[in-house]
């Protein structure tokens, strides 16, 4: 097994024992990128210079006994996180040449934990998409089938983890953007509780929904990454000063005696039968581990897509107003007036999906429409959150499919926004409620595509999520298949 195929905890052990060096691991990762990324297109930018410096520093630290949680671990960063001195595009022409003057808090935390930042991964433009097809830098291809999408918007991070172009990756999730690509690429993806991880330096799509989280090769790696990412940040007023446990502690505790809620609204007509079967397999495994699975209802589930597609575009229309070509980023030449310059810059700098959402959001916030749309959606959102609060009174976790179908073909839904929006039907509600959720590989389709199961916990119970996921992961009779690349 070559070094780039290892997990975070494996690499860590080999580095600490001196079996390998951080530079060797990094070389293996960059060799792999050289070999496959021309096809996969997981990365927008590589950070070779800084990465080798960090790897060399890691080797010095290791030789002197200074070991931190991510010392020498090559991590890929979704290109939505601000990195000082390193181009940060957010998948958009608007920021094609934008070099930020500061690091996001999570970047600083990873650097302080010794991580080696490999590069910036591809994504849907401004995280608006479920397929990576809206990226200005070209679609990322699914490692299992190059004609299929990797999911989105953290498609680059998910593909890079599965294709072993990194050891672990970081993404962001506004309506499923970590979990859906994790399911489509056969990796573990965790969306933390809103407020658990700092958003400072995360380029905003929808501020009340965005959250940073890890994409990893197994559950233990997710725990290791969460130990570094989670925690209060004074620079983010919405981050919460809630104590951070050691997420690795509960990895082998099992779920005996737990109650697992199975919401009937998530097993709808039209769900792919193979996914249904795979999730049923997980339910059987959970029961075999001594947990009780219980039919529950999340009655406002049917409003999730509508609520999400009012709130997220509304916030986005405001968050993306700063891209006006005046201070940084793309600007068209010409335009006789200020208004012309704005119009031309924003028309050429943004792609179609971003413009669609800006228009929807601007409309729903407009005078005379605010009450009927944004305000009403906010009220329904409170009901959706209440559904989860009610359910967690009697359940330890909730279990659903992550996606209604396996990865679809490139081009299949790109011209049908409504179909595209429905691919996130099982993940949107989690962001609206602000609760944490994790997607875990749970099987394969007959076409050999990975399928994902979603576990959901109550606010700030990432530890329970990881505990349950680790139990399922170690007991699911899942054949280890290698991706197609």
């Amino acid at each position, binding site marked *: 097994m070559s070094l780039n195929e290892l997990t975070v905890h494996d690499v860590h052990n080999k580095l600490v024992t001196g079996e390998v060096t951080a530079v060797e691991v990094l070389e293996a990762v960059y060799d792999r990128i050289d070999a496959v990324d021309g096809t996969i297109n997981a990365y927008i930018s590589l950070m070779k210079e800084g990465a080798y410096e960090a790897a060399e520093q890691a080797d010095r630290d290791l030789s002197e006994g200074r070991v931190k949680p991510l010392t020498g671990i090559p991590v890929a960063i979704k290109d939505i996180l601000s990195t000082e001195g390193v181009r940060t595009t957010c998948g958009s022409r608007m920021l094609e040449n934008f070099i930020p003057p500061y690091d996001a808090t999570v970047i600083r935390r990873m650097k302080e934990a010794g991580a080696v930042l490999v590069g910036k991964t591809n994504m849907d433009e401004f995280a608006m998409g479920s397929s990576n097809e809206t990226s200005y830098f070209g679609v990322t291809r699914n490692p299992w089938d190059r004609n299929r999408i990797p999911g989105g918007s953290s498609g680059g991070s998910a593909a890079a983890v599965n294709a072993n172009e990194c050891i672990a990756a970081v993404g962001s999730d506004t309506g499923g953007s970590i979990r859906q690509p994790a399911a489509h690429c056969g990796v573990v993806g965790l969306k933390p509780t809103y407020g658990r991880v700092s958003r400072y330096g995360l380029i905003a799509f*929808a501020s009340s929904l965005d959250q940073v989280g890890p994409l990893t090769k197994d559950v233990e790696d997710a725990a290791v990454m969460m130990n570094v990412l989670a925690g209060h940040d004074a620079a*983010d007023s919405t981050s919460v000063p809630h104590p951070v446990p050691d997420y690795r502690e509960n990895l082998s505790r099992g779920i005996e005696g737990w109650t697992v809620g199975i919401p009937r609204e998530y097993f709808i007509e039209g769900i792919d039968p193979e996914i249904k079967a795979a999730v049923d397999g997980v339910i059987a495994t959970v029961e075999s581990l001594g947990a009780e699975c219980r039919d529950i209802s999340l009655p406002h589930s049917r409003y999730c897509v509508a609520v999400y597609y009012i709130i997220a575009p*509304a916030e986005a*229309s405001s968050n993306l107003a*700063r891209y006006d070509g005046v*201070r940084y980023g793309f600007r068209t030449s010409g335009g006789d007036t200020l208004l012309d310059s704005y119009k031309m810059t924003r028309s050429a700098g943004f792609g179609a999906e971003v413009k669609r959402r800006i228009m929807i959001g601007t409309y729903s916030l407009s*005078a005379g429409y605010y009450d009927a749309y944004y305000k009403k959606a906010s009220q329904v959102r409170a009901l959706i959150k209440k559904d989860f609060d009610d359910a967690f009174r009697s359940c330890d976790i909730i279990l659903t499919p992550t996606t209604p179908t396996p990865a679809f073909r490139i081009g299949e839904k790109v011209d049908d926004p409504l179909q595209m929006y429905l691919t996130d039907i099982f993940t949107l509600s989690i962001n609206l409620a602000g609760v944490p959720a994790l997607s875990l590989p749970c099987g394969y389709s007959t076409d050999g595509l990975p399928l994902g199961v979603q576990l959901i916990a109550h606010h700030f119970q990432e530890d329970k999520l990881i505990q349950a996921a680790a139990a399922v992961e170690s007991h699911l009779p899942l054949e280890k298949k290698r991706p197609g690349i």
Partner: protein
Amino acid sequence: MEYEPIIGLEVHAQLLTESKIFCGCSTRFGAAPNSNTCPICLGMPGVLPVLNRTVVEYAIKMALATHCRINRVNSFARKNYFYPDLPKGYQISQYAEPLAEKGHIDIEYDGTRKTIGITRIHMEEDAGKSIHEDDGDYTYVDLNRTGVPLIEIVSEPDMRSPAEGAAYLRRLHEILVYLEICDGNMEEGSFRCDANVSVRPRGTETFGTRAELKNMNSFRNVQLALDYEIERQIDCLESGETVIQETRLWDAQGRVTHSMRGKEEAHDYRYFPEPDLVPVMISDNWINDVKRGLPELPLEKRDRFVREYGIPSYDAGVLTASRALADYFEVVAKVTGQPKTASNWVMGSVLASVKEEKIEVEKIPVSPDALGDMIIAIVDGTISGKIAKDVFDAMWQTGKSPRVIIEEKGLAQIDDTGAVDAVVNEVLIAHPMQLAEYQAGKEKLFGFFVGQVMKRTQGKANPQVVNDILKKKLSEQ
């Protein structure tokens, strides 16, 4: 037909905090363009605001001073519009849930008092400054001011004349400066005012269509702009036209208002709750702490001065124009126990010198205790009131105490009867003609003899003693 104007005012006051409202940048005025900036106030991708608590504290001060109801839970909202000096494309302000509502202040105009309602007070960030080249194609943007904290104070439409409007503004200005939360500098834009004005036939109830006036950067300009706009609206109605709802700019040079944008072009700011900030929670403890630290406000001080010191209300008005001057007066009044004399000196020589040398009250070189000592020297007859002016000037120049100056310059009054007696004799001998005329009945010459005695003693002779001796001598002759 007779018309009645209806006026409401919106004031933006910059708060005197060290750092900006949502980041750590300095608020200092006059720094090199774009030097007081950071990724947060520049609106870089991914940055987030963090509320400066001192801003809330200052806003609570103003809310308490204007008798507002403070909303224990209030929140920020985004006001969306595009402009190059607004880096995020939205201003973080308060909208549906402002800091404070339903207050009032008393104004004094033409000797009568009137209560003006305060609709609301809210916190927000200032925008940057666009500097348009006079004769070129370029507009420059300076973002130093971006994120400087503001409070917006919105009045009820309670004012019925431009003079009342100006009185309201002066009172608001006075309160802000008294609270030491705003420097009140209108030229630098620390205190800015917009006006809503309409007219209606006197005796009717419904308001007319209003115009919003902008760009008035002095009290005088506010009054002039309101005068002009009221006349314009009345002319409109008189000539059978209708007043349209619009925003108008005051042109201080031309002394007219121009239409800037009509109702149709009015911005739709698409306000919605700011998701990057949590609601502001204000506890009773916090309010009580702020309340304890509040100074006495100008109008209360004015009333107290009249009551406590028995000085005329005109004097009290002048003396309470600033907190520093009022404090100065109070020390002088207490040291001397002579409030009216203290008031005369402070309003007279002290303010005249302040004005002449263009210094701030805080920097007066004569301490109030020293001035008090000097007044005591007048009262106890050590120096005459006339000599005191010289002593005061010397104190102002040298900073020395009045006793030292009197001593050094030998300015003490000559009370010694023998010494005065001798001088009086000299004067009478030196002016036999005047003496003869006086004795012939020209009694007006008494003053001449007094003057001569004062001249020979360089003004130091005690005038009472001179009078007594002179009267005695003249009757003896």
